């Protein structure tokens, strides 16, 4: 069997970001530029609440929302913050640097023949 090649999520998504959702949650967003890519990534089933929990090494129940937001072509995951924003000892008051582990996501992907994609 020939292994299906895979590509990092950063080659497929336009935006990968995180931000506070109020003071006690952080919301992660993976946003795509075109519907075909979004639908294909969605169909692989690689990105799930469970796989995100695994990536961050947190219990599944800390993920409060996992939403495939079709109008925005986005996968949106919201998790409880380990510390409330701005509490003593807290280190990312805006919650905007918590997405980096998402870069490790690899999606099984075969580019159409002859098309060289940017960012590979």
């Amino acid at each position, binding site marked *: 069997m020939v292994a299906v090649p895979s590509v990092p999520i950063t080659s497929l998504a336009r935006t990968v970001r995180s931000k506070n*959702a*109020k003071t006690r*949650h952080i919301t992660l967003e993976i946003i795509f530029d075109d519907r075909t890519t979004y639908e294909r990534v969605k169909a692989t089933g690689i990105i799930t609440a469970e796989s995100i929990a695994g990536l961050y090494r947190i219990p599944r129940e800390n993920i409060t929302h996992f939403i495939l937001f079709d*109008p925005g072509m986005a996968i949106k995951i919201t998790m409880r913050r380990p510390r409330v*924003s*701005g509490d*003593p000892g807290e280190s990312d008051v805006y919650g905007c640097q918590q997405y*980096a582990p998402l870069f490790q996501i690899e999606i099984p992907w075969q580019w159409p023949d002859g098309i060289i994609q940017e960012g590979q």
Partner: protein
Amino acid sequence: MRERLSVLSSTGNLGDTPIEEASFYEGIKRDLDYLAADAGSSDLGPTFLGSDSPHNPVEWEKHDLELLLLASRARGIPMVIGSCRSTGTDSGVDFFVELIREIAVEHSLGRFRIAAIYSELDLDILKERMEREQTLPLEADEPLTASDVEATDHATAMMGVEQLMVALSRGADVVLAGRCCDDAVYAAYPILHGFDRGLALHLGKAIECASLVATPQRVKESVLGTITRDAFYLEPMHPEQRVTPHSVAAHSMYERMDPYTQAVPGGILDMHRTRYEAHTDRIARVSGSQFIPSADGTYSVKLEGAGCVGFRVFHIVGIRDTIAVRHIEKILADTRNKVRDVFGDKAEGKDYQLFFHTYGVDGVMGHLEPVKETGSHEVGIVIEVVSPDQELAISIAKLAKFRFFYAQYPGQRNSSGGGAAILTDEPLLPKSKAYRWTIDHLLRLDDPLDPEVFRFRYLEAGR
């Protein structure tokens, strides 16, 4: 009845960075019906509410208010500002009232009417009410307790469209609101004029960060929002930006947990049936969003509170010795143990809290950091100590700092100091207090205009 109303949004956070003027002046050439801006956010953390102090330089707040006020007076259209001076406390509202009056004098503006809406809560009243009727935890884990209120220095209630509509209907030209929902700032005027509440709220949600709803990303550029009977339209005023169905949809989920529903006082904004379409290649059309009143007819407002937890001091240490970096976990544990030894009569967690923000290891993500082994050749440690006793906090930070210089670890080669300091003890000098969020709850009101929660003051300005 009007068939359409237009608003210009020029900043997502009035005063935190000045409004870009070129696209603002482009925008005010249009046929505008009102102006609005949100000045607040819980994103700032608890310090500014807890200490009731400004977050932004006053020059920038005045700059933005001046642009808006001059345009509003020149055209004779109302302007609505929510969450004055970031936190929407009473002193924040008063501060903006004074800025507006000052600008009016400086520009010899004709007479106009200001409505100030206060929404800071008297903590004794809050305690009484909390005993009479239970608050619901919103983001907090439990209903509000007396000790939460005692730990609070300042608390506000977040108003919706109802309070703003009262001020507008009483002829206010400039509405300066205390803590306020960001969407309400834009939605109140169209709802007052009979436009659909769901569409108006979604317009507010979509436009409240100004050019962040457009692509490519730019900040503080103006965006024109137009609401009609069955849709709203967004058009960027910066020539290089576009608002696309995708950019609006993507922004509709920004900083929120659920992109389909948004709780507002009195109900929810339901975006399950929302349609995002291209009107032109740079104007998006949005329709189908609905307001659904709460099933039991209740009206609840969010309460926000913050309080002081003690004094906070920082120290900063860098380690470049790669052998020490390899043993950083051991060095951190040893430093903490030394503090516990020396301050044996103090209880960590109660008398003081000690944190190491270890940049190069897990300084940004802390507990969420999945990478356990650092690949860095240096690490930076920000020592943070919080204590009700300022002298104790300073002593602990000094001890921790020096312990890094005397660190012992396997393979050690240095004997002259295991860390680099930025200056000596100057980082300890800016003495500041630490705050935390204490209240994040819902309070049910029988009347949206409950005078214990929302107070109105009308005053004249100009000449």
